[in-house]
């Protein structure tokens, strides 16, 4: 169990958050570049001194600025995988792995080799890090981080430096490893898909604060902000909302068009109503691409699908069993449809279509 | 030589004494260490607090000034030298008059304040204002010690320079020597003194005594130095 409350001023960025990770589970920190993700890891590892804060791991206090407690990094012993792996270039692979082992001279190599064996790279023991491929480097970095039986695992975008091909395999291996390690793990990523695969809980961090946390499904289903919606892969459209007569809300889109949602319009209070926005409070509307169906431009209105936006196809991409169709409806939007609807509608760039989805699939979030 | 157990004697001496003193030092029972340089420079070092055991100058003025300030003991004049003109071995003109009258001669002299420079100016002044102006117009460089002057001529960088007879002799074939007529020759007197704060003043005094009579005097004579003029009457620039 790792718990941390951190407050730090990083140049312009004010980092202020708290988090908690149980042993054997993995928390993913997702967020844009510069949000402070790496800084959180560094604070936990002891490489950055927060202005205020408390960090505890397994009942031991690592940091308590109020009480003046501060363990140096070498006594916290986090297994840290840096974004670029930070393998020591002047040491061979096995020496990198052995670096954290507090063993006698004679036993170090054997112990390092055993670990490398587990990662299937014993053959590389004497290689220089610079000669390794990205995937091999990642494995060495993991082996090194695990060598000293860390009390927590901190992984800073461990997959970002890999090419798409290696990444698939590496992700799978990492998932195994995290479940085996049995210590709290924090994974930094800016890829939501990666977070889904590897983590139990996702915390979305923006400008130094956690804007939402929860299971990946929860975040996708109920994004707390336009940003979270976008991160989870939803289509996000900007507009302004007013409360609808029969409950729910109505949203006037910035580029034109009217949408309905079963969500209420944001409470009149924050953001302040009326005044600057006589037509409602500014909101973002989010909808999953797979909730959006496409119909021919001239098809009649039918069924329960209350939201209908006419537009022009801008791109068509077939990815496996799905077809992702970009549609310009004043604002850009992506629909995910099946091969058969692509063929039936004759979807090509330039074709006119209507994007259709339910009011109940339409989330209204502040922006 | 390398350091050994013999008592050590440190001697600051004018550059022009290099060969004679080195030979003298070899034969002494002490481990003698020399610092050869411009007399003015060595005097300045003593003013800055350097404490060699003996100071030997190419003029009498520096030791006297230092003695007046209590930095060295009573100076003793121990040798005399001659000023000569040296030219590069390939030089065609070999008489003083011809050289001094030519316009295209690159002449190197000692800087003012350096004994050799002061003696040189004394000589030039005696040539009369017209010739003196001519000669000074030919000066290309004012060196901070005799070695600089010899080096420039030996290297062929300059055509001629005023140095001591002993330096000219020490340079061997690298330069040709032109003696000055007696009426121009300055009185070059060398004096030495025991420095205040010397480790063993008696030993230092013995070194100076040896210059007046004994092995030091012999080495000086071998190197071409003249015996000291009557004690106490020596002047100099």
């Amino acid at each position, binding site marked *: 169990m790792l718990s941390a409350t951190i407050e*730090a001023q*990083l*140049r312009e960025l004010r980092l202020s958050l708290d988090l908690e990770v149980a042993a054997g589970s993995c928390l993913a920190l997702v967020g844009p570049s510069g949000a402070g993700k790496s800084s959180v890891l560094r604070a936990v590892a*002891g*490489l*950055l*001194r927060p202005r205020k804060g408390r960090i505890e791991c397994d009942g031991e206090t690592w940091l308590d600025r109020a009480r003046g407690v501060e363990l*140096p*990094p070498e006594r916290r012993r986090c297994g840290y995988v840096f974004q670029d792996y930070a393998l020591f270039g002047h040491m061979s692979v096995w020496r990198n792995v052995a670096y954290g082992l507090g063993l006698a001279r004679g036993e170090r190599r054997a112990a390092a080799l055993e670990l490398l064996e587990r990662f299937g790279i014993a053959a590389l023991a004497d290689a220089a890090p610079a000669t390794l491929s990205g995937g091999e480097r990642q494995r060495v970095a993991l082996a090194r981080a695990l060598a000293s039986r860390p009390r927590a695992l901190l992984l800073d975008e461990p997959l970002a430096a890999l090419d798409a091909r290696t990444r698939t395999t590496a992700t799978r291996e990492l998932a195994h490893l995290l479940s085996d390690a049995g210590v709290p793990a924090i994974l930094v990523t800016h890829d939501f898909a990666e977070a889904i695969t590897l983590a139990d809980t996702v915390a979305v961090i923006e400008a130094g604060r956690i804007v939402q946390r929860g299971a990946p499904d929860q975040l996708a289903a109920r994004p707390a902000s336009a940003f979270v919606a976008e991160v989870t892969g939803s289509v996000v459209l900007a507009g302004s909302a007013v409360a609808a007569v029969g409950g729910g809300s109505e949203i006037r889109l910035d580029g034109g068009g009217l949408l309905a949602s079963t969500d209420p319009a944001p409470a009149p209070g924050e953001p302040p109503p009326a005044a600057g926005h006589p037509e409602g409070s500014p909101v973002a509307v989010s909808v999953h691409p797979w909730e959006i169906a496409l119909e021919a431009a001239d098809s009649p209105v039918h069924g329960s699908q209350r939201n209908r936006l006419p537009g022009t196809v801008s791109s068509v991409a077939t990815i496996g069993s799905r077809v992702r169709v970009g549609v310009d409806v004043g604002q850009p939007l992506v629909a995910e449809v099946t091969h058969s609807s692509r063929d039936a509608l004759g979807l090509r760039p330039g074709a006119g279509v209507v994007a259709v989805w339910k009011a109940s699939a339409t989330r209204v979030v502040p922006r | 030589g390398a350091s050994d157990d013999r008592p050590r004697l440190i001697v600051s001496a004018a550059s022009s004494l290099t060969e004679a003193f080195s030979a003298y030092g070899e034969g002494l029972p002490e481990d003698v260490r020399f610092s050869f340089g*411009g007399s*003015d*420079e060595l*005097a*300045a070092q003593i*003013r*800055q607090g350097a404490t060699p055991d003996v100071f030997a100058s190419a003029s009498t003025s520096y030791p006297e000034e230092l003695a007046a300030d209590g930095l060295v003991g009573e100076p003793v004049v121990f040798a005399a030298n001659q000023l000569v003109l040296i030219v590069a071995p390939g030089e065609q003109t070999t008489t003083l008059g011809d050289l001094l009258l030519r316009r295209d001669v*690159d002449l*190197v002299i000692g*800087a*003012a*304040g*350096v004994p050799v420079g002061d003696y040189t100016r004394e000589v030039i002044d005696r040539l009369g204002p017209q010739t003196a102006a001519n000669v000074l117009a030919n*000066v*290309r*460089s*004012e*060196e*901070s010690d005799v070695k*600089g002057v010899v*080096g*420039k001529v030996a*290297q*062929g*960088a*300059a055509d001629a320079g005023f140095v001591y007879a002993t330096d000219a002799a020490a340079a061997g074939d690298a330069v040709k020597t032109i003696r000055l007529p007696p009426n121009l020759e300055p009185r070059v007197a060398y004096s030495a003194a025991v420095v205040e704060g010397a480790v063993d003043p008696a030993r230092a005094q013995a070194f100076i005594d040896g210059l007046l009579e004994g092995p030091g005097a012999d080495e000086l004579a071998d190197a071409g130095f003249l015996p000291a003029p009557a004690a106490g009457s020596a002047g100099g620039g």
Partner: protein
Amino acid sequence: MAGLRLRWFPLVLTGALVLALAFLTVPIAAIFFEAGPRQLIDSLGNEQALDALRLSLLTSSIALALILLIGTPAAYLLATRRFRGRNLVITLIELPLVVPPAVVGIGLLAALGPGGLLGGALGDLGIELVFQTAGVVVALTFVASPFYLRQAQSAFEAIDPSWLGASRTLGASEARTFLRVAIPAAMGGLLSGTALAWGRALGEFGATIVFAGSFQGITQTAPLAILELFSSDFDAALALAAVLVAVSAALLATVKLFAPRTDPRAGETITVA
């Protein structure tokens, strides 16, 4: 206990820095301390000192102009091209940094003096260097240029090669790329190299005295005058030394001000590791 165990290393580091700093600044501070404002002002009335200062500024400026003009393209070539013998060339260019100045003077005499290797050829062209202000410029250029070349080369090497590629694809010739992209991008390093080279030129003594001699107003630069004044008029020497140090320091400082901030870790104050 823990506190003690943690603190000794930073203390060692701080101690080392304080020691180094004190050692390097006290002697320079002492000059100003001993010189005193009176002597400083007096020395500005000393004609020999003024002549020397003037000559130093003139010759070092010309030397710097030559160094920048030739050195900049030469350094660019070394930084951007790989060729056989490149490492040898770099070592040869660094060598003058470690050759004693007096030896440089002897070498210059042996190479460019009237009796030197190229002396005859230069003489035929009517070029005289020994005892001439031009000779001072040659000596200064020789001792100062490696400082500039080193810095310029590494400044050019630090430029992202894709900047140069981008410039080319945008229609700029290699020469335009050099002038419009490479030089501005390397400006910080070029300026700091300029300052170092200028400082070295202002302080040059041994090569100048051996190669060019010492004559007031023609070849007697400030360091030569200082050594001459050292024995005759210590206060004036001290004052001239102080002025020279001040000029050098001003050069360094000016350049630091002009140089673009490129320190990637600037402003980070809270890192522990």
